[in-house]
């Protein structure tokens, strides 16, 4: 199931905005996740969201901090995984 990277990014931004209680337009796609204000609980919830929404389990997939460098990088990684 291929999903365009922009659509993945939009869903990620909407979920992070929801977790932080802010508007999605205020979420920068190019900022590291810890600078967006996500804490451990929010991050785990984001991973669970990705698993449910895209069917990808990122929790034990050996992702490094670089894969979470920003929402854009993460969306790119998810879109790439869905294509392969």
């Amino acid at each position, binding site marked *: 199931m291929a999903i365009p990277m922009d659509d993945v990014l939009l869903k990620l931004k909407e979920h992070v905005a929801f977790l932080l*209680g*802010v508007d999605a337009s205020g979420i920068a796609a190019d900022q590291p*996740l810890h600078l967006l*204000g996500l804490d451990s609980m929010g991050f*785990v919830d984001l991973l*669970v969201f990705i698993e449910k929404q895209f069917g990808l389990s990122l929790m034990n997939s050996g992702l490094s901090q670089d894969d979470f460098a920003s929402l854009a990088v993460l969306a790119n990684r998810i879109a790439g995984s869905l294509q392969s």
Partner: protein
Amino acid sequence: MKVPSSSRKRYLGGADWCVAALRQGTLETTGRPTTFHVAVFVAGNPDPARLQDRFQDYCARFPLLWGRPARCWCLAPYWKSPADATARKASFRHGTDFGPATPATVVRRIEELASDPDRLRGCAVALELLQGPAADDALVFSFDHLLFDAAGAERFIDLFCRFADGQAAATEFPDPQVPEPAQLDQWGKRFASGQKLNRALRELLPGATANLELPADARRRPFRFRVLSLTADETRRAQEQAFATAGYLMFTPYVLATAAATFQPRFAGRVAADADFVVTVSTSRLRPPGERAPHVFFNDLSFLYFGLPVAQAGERDAMARILRDQMIAQVKTGMPAAIEDSNLLMRILPPRAFWKFMFTFFRNRLSSFALTCLGDPLLKTATVLGCAIRTHVHYPVMPAPPGLGLILNRSGDVYHVVLSYLEGVLPEDEVATLLDEFRQRLLNGAPQPQ
């Protein structure tokens, strides 16, 4: 069954009632409720009369500050607010008899306030300006946990600072009377959540719980606080250590593992060899889709429970990864939602009965200690009455039992770590070294030999 709220009535949530139960338990054990305090350190000397005037004007906008819990015909507890608060004055004190408002002076004063059973009688918030013969002062806010959690308190102070400086727009004031449903429907679902929680806890915590004894004269013992303020560089290093040890953004499991490793030798000599640490961690609540954004008033909390053998708690790095996996498993299996769901049902009990039920439910195994890591600061305003805000620190009274806990709050680019305990839970000579050890472990791993 949905029951609409009236303008003076706001249904309490599951977390509110859990806080009410812990508050009642602490009241019975120590004779004092669980209040919490936030000190705002400022550069300069705010004018006391103007501060009092602005604070009391601000509070009068929120009649619910003078409210109290009550019970609806449908059994759901609610917060009953007075119709009007314009003639009411929130407690304000100008304290000039404590010397300069240094961190040590502020701690001593907050220990007195926290140990005063009447600190918040009648109103859920109070302010004291500590003003000594120095260039800097401190504003000490006291909050009733029934009406505020830590994040809500920061939003409340943030808005007050802007209100005091004439910078708060009318649209920024929260409407505390937004209707909330009673949520005492779906009993079958909520019973099932309680069962799920019970089973998960039995699986997670199979052994005996490590608990320190409360002092026999707990009602006469004061609440104490010790503070460790990290520098900006230390805060960054702690975060890097956390990410490298427990994984990206896994600061809470790392801090919990560090705390457990620090507490371990202090527990090991006093509890059974096979006892487990049981730690309650309060976190921000994961809201279901469609729910409105977090608010100023009431408790928007969730809880996670962690278990680990005391004997192995000294292995910080391994523990951090185990705790991370416990956290992921709990979120994935919907434990926070199950806790909230079952707490909604428990609201049919009076707080005292709920507190006693907790003992039974947890098989007399309330937590060994408590931990809270607050996220990004919500107190973002830079000034109050023209004085620059230097930093702010949280001092919560920990429910007793266990009467022992750590809270980390971030202010600007630094973390403050506060050890909160009931005097006598640990010997003072052990308390004196605890935060130094915690700091070394947080930044480096094992503490250096003295």
